[in-house]
C-alpha cells in the first residue's frame, strides 16, 4: 500500500566511479514486477531503501524498453546510500515507486535528440538515451554530450565506449580542466562551453539536460545562445523527498511538487519557478 | 528619566555614531502583556523599543545567528543578568567576541525594569555574582523538593508523564543561546544515537541529552520552560544540574568571559565518592 515498498533482490553491483555504484535489482514478487512493467516510463523515480536505515530517492536508470530489472546509480554519501553500497548480490533491498512524471519520448519521434549530462546525472539521461536507442529507427540524429569533473568520475564507462563505437550516435565527452589523464583523447572544458563549440543545430531537435544546478543554469544559457527554444529543452529536478507521493510537503519548488508534477520539466517550466527556491 | 527613555536615547546615539550596527531589544507584542524581540537599525526606529517588567526573554540567542557578528561590527543588546551570563559563556566557548557586544543591562525588580551600570560583559561581574543567590520560584522549589524525596521509580514515572507530552518541536533548543550546534546530536544519523521519533522513549532520550549538554552552561533564563508549548517543567531539570555542578565543582556558569567550561576542565581532587 501507500508506504509499503517492494522487496528487491540485488542481482549485481558495479563500481562506476569513486563512490558511485550501480545496483541491478530484480523483483522478488511476480505481482510487483507486473505492476512495475505496467507503470514504469522513462524519467520516473523511486525510493530505494534498506529497512532499518531508511529510503533514498533517485531515478530509475534503466530504460522503459528494458523492464526486467531496475538499475539505479547513486553516489555513496548518506546513511542509506552507504548501506546500499555495501550490499552484495542476493541481498534484499526495497523499492517504492515508480513515481512522478516522464519524458514524453513518443513526442520526440522523428526529431533529432541532444542529450547533455554532467557527472552523476548521466543515469537519468541514460534511461532516456537507451529508451530511444532501443527504438533507434524512430529518431533522427542522436548527440550525447557528457562531462564530468575528472576522467575517473565518468560513469557507465563501458556504455560510453559502446556509444562511441556506434555510427548512429555522436558522443562528445569532456572533463573539467585539470581532470584529464595524460592519455585523454576527448575534450577538456566545462559542458556549456564544449556544447557551444560542438554547436548542435536546434533545428527539429529536442534537448534533454541533466546535471547539478549550476551546470543546468549555464547550459541553459548556452542552449539559448544556440537557438534552442525553452519548450524543446527537458530537464529533471531533484529535491529531498520522504513520501514520494505528494504528502510529506518538502520537495516543492514554489507551488510545484517535484514528486508529483516532476521530476521531468521543460526549461520553460523551470524558468517559471522561483529560481531562489531551487 | 525612565529606563525606557534612557535606553532609547542611548541606543539612538550608538546607532547614529555608528558604534553599533544593530540594537536588539524588546518591542510591543501582539497583546498588551506580550513583548517581542525587535531589531533596530536606525536611530528613528529606537522609538519601537520598549523596556518594562514584561521583558523577560533572553535576547542573547540572536547573537549566535549565523553571520551576524562575522563582519566585526558591534551589536547592542538588551540583557538581564542571565543574558549577561550567556554572553560570558558564549565568549568562553569562543562563539562570539565579547568586544562586539554592547550590553544594555537591566534587571527586573517587583515587576519594574531597572538599569544596570556597564556596557561590556566584564562590567557586570558583581551583578553576575549577586545572581548566584537566585533560586527557583517558590512553587517550583516546592516541586523540586518533592521530587527529591520520592523514590527513583516514582521520579521516573513523573518524568515519563512529563516527557510523554513532548512533541519534539525543539523550541527549547532553538530558543536557548547555549544550543548553537550547527547540527544537533538528534539530527545526526550516522550513527543515530537517540530516537528522532516523538514517542516517550525518544522524548526521554532527547530531554536527557539536552539537559546534559546544558549542565554547567545553563544560565537559568527560563527560555526553554517558557517556550515549551506543552508545558514541560524544563527549569526543574536545568536547575538541578546547575546545583549539581555548583555542589560538586564549585562552578557557577557564566561568571566571566574566560571561565573554562565545567566539563572541559578538571581538578585532580574532584569528588569521586560514587566510583568503585
Amino acid at each position, binding site marked *: 500500500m501507500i508506504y509499503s515498498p517492494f522487496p528487491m533482490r540485488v542481482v549485481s553491483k558495479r563500481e562506476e566511479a569513486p563512490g558511485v555504484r550501480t545496483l541491478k535489482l530484480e523483483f522478488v514478487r511476480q505481482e510487483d514486477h507486473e505492476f512495475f512493467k505496467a507503470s514504469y516510463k522513462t524519467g520516473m523515480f523511486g525510493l530505494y531503501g534498506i529497512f532499518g536505515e531508511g529510503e533514498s530517492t533517485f531515478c530509475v536508470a534503466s530504460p522503459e524498453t528494458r523492464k526486467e530489472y531496475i538499475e539505479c546509480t547513486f553516489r555513496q554519501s548518506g546513511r542509506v546510500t552507504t548501506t546500499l553500497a555495501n550490499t552484495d548480490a542476493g541481498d534484499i533491498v526495497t523499492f517504492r515507486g515508480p513515481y512522478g512524471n516522464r519524458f514524453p519520448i513518443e513526442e520526440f519521434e522523428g526529431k533529432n535528440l541532444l542529450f547533455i549530462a554532467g557527472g552523476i546525472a548521466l543515469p537519468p539521461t541514460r534511461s532516456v538515451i537507451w529508451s530511444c536507442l532501443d527504438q533507434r529507427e524512430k529518431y533522427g540524429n542522436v548527440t550525447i554530450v557528457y562531462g564530468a569533473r575528472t576522467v575517473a568520475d565518468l560513469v557507465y564507462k563501458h556504455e560510453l565506449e559502446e556509444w562511441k563505437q556506434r555510427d548512429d550516435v555522436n558522443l562528445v565527452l569532456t572533463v573539467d580542466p585539470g581532470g584529464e589523464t595524460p592519455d585523454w583523447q576527448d575534450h577538456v572544458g566545462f559542458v556549456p562551453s564544449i556544447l557551444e563549440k560542438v554547436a548542435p543545430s536546434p533545428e527539429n531537435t529536442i534537448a534533454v539536460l541533466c546535471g547539478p544546478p549550476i551546470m543546468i543554469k549555464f547550459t541553459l544559457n548556452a542552449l539559448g545562445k544556440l537557438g534552442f527554444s525553452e519548450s524543446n529543452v527537458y530537464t529533471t529536478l531533484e529535491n529531498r523527498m520522504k513520501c514520494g507521493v505528494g504528502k510529506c510537503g518538502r520537495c516543492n519548488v514554489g507551488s510545484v511538487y517535484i514528486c508529483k508534477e516532476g521530476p521531468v520539466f521543460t526549461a520553460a517550466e523551470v524558468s517559471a519557478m522561483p529560481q531562489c527556491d531551487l | 528619566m525612565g529606563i525606557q527613555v534612557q535606553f532609547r536615547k542611548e541606543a539612538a546615539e550608538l546607532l547614529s555614531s555608528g558604534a553599533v550596527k544593530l540594537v536588539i531589544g524588546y518591542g510591543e507584542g501582539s497583546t498588551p502583556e506580550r513583548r517581542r524581540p525587535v531589531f533596530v537599525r536606525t536611530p528613528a526606529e529606537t522609538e519601537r523599543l520598549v523596556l518594562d517588567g514584561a521583558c523577560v526573554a533572553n535576547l542573547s540567542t540572536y547573537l549566535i545567528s549565523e553571520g551576524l557578528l562575522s563582519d566585526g561590527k558591534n551589536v547592542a543588546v538588551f540583557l538581564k543578568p542571565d543574558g549577561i551570563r550567556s554572553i560570558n559563556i558564549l565568549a568562553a566557548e569562543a562563539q562570539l567576541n565579547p568586544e562586539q557586544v554592547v550590553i544594555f543591562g537591566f534587571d527586573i525588580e517587583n515587576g519594574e525594569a531597572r538599569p544596570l551600570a556597564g556596557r561590556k560583559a566584564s562590567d557586570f561581574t558583581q551583578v553576575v555574582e549577586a545572581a548566584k543567590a537566585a533560586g527557583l520560584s517558590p512553587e517550583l522549589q516546592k516541586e523540586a523538593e518533592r521530587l527529591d524525596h520520592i523514590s527513583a521509580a516514582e521520579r521516573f*514515572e*513523573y518524568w515519563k508523564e512529563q516527557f510523554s507530552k513532548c512533541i519534539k518541536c525543539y523550541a527549547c533548543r532553538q530558543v536557548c543561546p547555549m544550543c548553537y550546534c550547527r547540527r544537533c546530536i538528534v539530527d545526526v544519523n550516522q550513527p543515530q544515537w*537517540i530516537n528522532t521519533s516523538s*514517542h516517550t522513549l525518544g522524548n526521554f532520550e532527547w530531554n536527557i541529552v539536552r539537559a546534559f549538554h546544558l549542565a554547567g552552561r545553563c544560565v537559568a533564563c527560563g527560555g526553554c520552560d517558557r517556550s515549551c508549548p506543552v508545558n514541560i517543567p524544563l527549569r526543574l531539570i536545568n536547575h*538541578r544540574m546547575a546545583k549539581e555542578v555548583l555542589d560538586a565543582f564549585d562552578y557557577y556558569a557564566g561568571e566571566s568571559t574566560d571561565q573554562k567550561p565545567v566539563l572541559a576542565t578538571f581538578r585532580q581532587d*574532584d569528588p569521586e565518592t560514587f566510583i*568503585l
Partner: protein
Amino acid sequence: MSEPFEPKIVAFVCTYCTYAGADLAGTSRMKYASNVRIVRLPCTGRISPMFILKALQKGADGVLVSGCHPGDCHFAQGNYHARRRWTVFRALLAFTGIPEQRIRFSWISAAEGAKFAELINSLTEDIRKLGPFEQYHELQTVIETQSTY
C-alpha cells in the same frame, strides 16, 4: 515456568587498564558472571553518555563504565575529564529516576584482575536482585502501540 532472570549488562571499558584487567582475570582463570558484554574503548574520555543511553535503549539492565585510576590515564587526563562528566550524568540520571544502582562506575587497573571479577559478580548479583529494568524497557514496547489510537 518462566526462565530465571539473567541480567544484561554492558561494560564500557578503557583498553589500557580495565580491559587489560579483564584480560588478566581471564588468563588467571578467575570465574566471573557471563552476563556482561564488554565494549572496549581507547580511553574513558571517549565514553560518551550517549553510549549509556544507547545501551539502555537496546535493552541493558545495567551499565558499567570503567577505566584507569586517576593519575594512571594513558592519555594523562582522559579519566579526569570523564570523572566530571560521570558526576554530572549520574546526577542527571538519578534525577530523572534511573536508579543509580544500574549505572556503575569504577577504576580498575591492568593489575586488578581480581577486582574486575569481583565487581562483575557483585554487579550482576545486585542487578539480578533489582530485576529487569522494565520501567525503561517498557518505553520501548509502548512505542510499538503508542499513537495507534
